[in-house]
């Protein structure tokens, strides 16, 4: 059986933890309509990972450090970044470019680049598992701490400000959580597929529930289901895990969209 292998045990544990966190954080990310921030942070994380390897650190340390820096910067400039998609795109390209450059100097072969870009959950060892667990716990704890002011400030920034919640403070804290979450997601599905865990399940769940708390829980459950089902499929087909998780995430979202569309556009029977 697949759970006899230690690498599979680690893969299940790692992807499970990360999926739970990504589901919850992603739900609020989608609510705030900031999905693009996760995309930006993951690209910046690529440069952090390759840069860290180059100077002899672990890639995870590099990703965490760089994404936290970038997220703070984005949070502080939040109002000014709105609509500045060209500037953001330029910074993203630059980050990927630097990532490329660092890889070029550190010639360990293209396989590590592919692991960073598309994830390598089967390669998670005991040490990395503990690190992922610690960061995931910090993420969830911080998220639970900031949820109330975050939701208030998202929906009613002016009133929240009048009650003493600065939108900038909330933005910086939340983006720090997103940065940590992105960092652990990268270890599972890679820089380019972070959306599949962070945004996919949350977007799907928002089609079905309007209830905030239930929504966050359901998004976590769905992300977990996708991650574990992806692992099982990957084990038996020998295709990459990230492919399966992405395929599941997108298929479920599209099916949900179609179901919603048919339900809302159905002609009522009494109309005839």
């Amino acid at each position, binding site marked *: 059986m697949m759970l006899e292998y230690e690498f599979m045990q680690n893969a299940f544990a790692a992807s499970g933890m990360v999926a739970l966190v990504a589901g919850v954080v992603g739900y609020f990310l989608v*609510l705030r*309509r900031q999905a693009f921030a996760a995309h930006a942070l993951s690209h910046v994380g690529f440069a952090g990972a390759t840069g860290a390897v180059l100077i002899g650190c672990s890639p995870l340390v590099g990703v965490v450090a760089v994404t936290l820096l970038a997220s703070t910067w984005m949070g502080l400039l939040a109002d000014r970044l709105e609509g500045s998609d060209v500037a953001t795109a330029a910074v993203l390209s630059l980050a990927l470019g630097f990532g490329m450059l660092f890889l070029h100097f550190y010639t360990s072969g293209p396989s590590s680049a592919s692991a960073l870009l598309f994830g390598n959950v089967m390669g998670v060892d005991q040490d990395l598992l503990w690190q992922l667990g610690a960061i995931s716990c910090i993420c969830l704890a911080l998220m*639970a*701490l*900031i*949820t*109330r*002011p975050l*939701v*208030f*400030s*998202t*929906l*009613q*920034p*002016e*009133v*929240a*400000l*009048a*009650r*003493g*919640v600065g939108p900038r403070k909330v933005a910086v804290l939340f983006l720090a959580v997103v940065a940590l979450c992105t960092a652990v997601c990268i270890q599972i599905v890679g820089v380019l597929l972070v959306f599949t865990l962070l945004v996919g399940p949350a977007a799907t769940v*928002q089609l079905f529930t*309007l*209830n*905030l*708390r239930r929504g966050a829980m359901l998004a976590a459950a769905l992300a977990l289901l996708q991650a574990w089902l992806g692992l099982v499929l990957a084990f038996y087909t020998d295709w990459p895990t990230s492919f399966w998780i992405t395929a599941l995430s997108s298929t479920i979202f599209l099916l949900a969209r179609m179901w919603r569309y048919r339900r809302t556009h159905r002609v009522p029977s009494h109309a005839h």
Partner: protein
Amino acid sequence: MNAIEVTDAHIALVGNVVLRGVNLSIAQNQFIALLGPNGAGKTTLLRAILGLVKPYQGAITVLGKPAGQINTEIGYVPQTRSVLAHANMRGIDFVASAIRGAQWGWPSLSASQRHEVDWALDRVQASGLALRAIHEMSGGERQRLLLAQALLGRPQLLLLDEPLISLDLQHQNNIIALVREIQQDLQITVLFSAHEINPLLGVVDQVLYLGNQQAALGTVNEVITESVLSRLYATPIEVLHQRGRVFVMAGRTEVVKPDHCHDA
């Protein structure tokens, strides 16, 4: 004790003086229309009452305390933001998000807090909106929810920033009647900013008119006059009364035009 006391307030926004040496005494238990041309400082004055903008000279006192110190006793409805047009959540969750919204933690409501939310929804006749999605509501329905949220904590003072914007005439009248009823039942002070006086005629106790860095407070007949408005618009103004409506004219053009845009 007055609801709002403004003493020789000078307020500037990014270097532009909006109000210069304004003095106001607003008594409690009044429905006050806040009027004035665009850029006259209606929103700025509301934000100053909340302490979000500080006068560079003079002082603002709210219910006996310096502005900004008792904001939990003020209900505030800013101009609607686009966020709500996309908010995929229930009406009741939106209203409840303001309860202890400034405190850290995971949102959860006690029985009495849930009761308070139900009371507020009922108060604005929006109990039927509790379980519906905000992004599927009309502008008038969303305005009711905003009002319900502002009533949480039973404030003594309600600040409403252009609540009639993008509502059609019938919904405008519904909101005005609702606010008047709440104001009288709860015996509170309401500052209601609006583009023009006509929908509010016969409902308001007083008018606070801003313009030309100055302010005028009084009844409709005291403030909507040629001498006062000519001062506030810094140009000769003619005030015409016709069929129970007021037309504010500068030369041959109407200065204030009715704004009944229809909401999408």
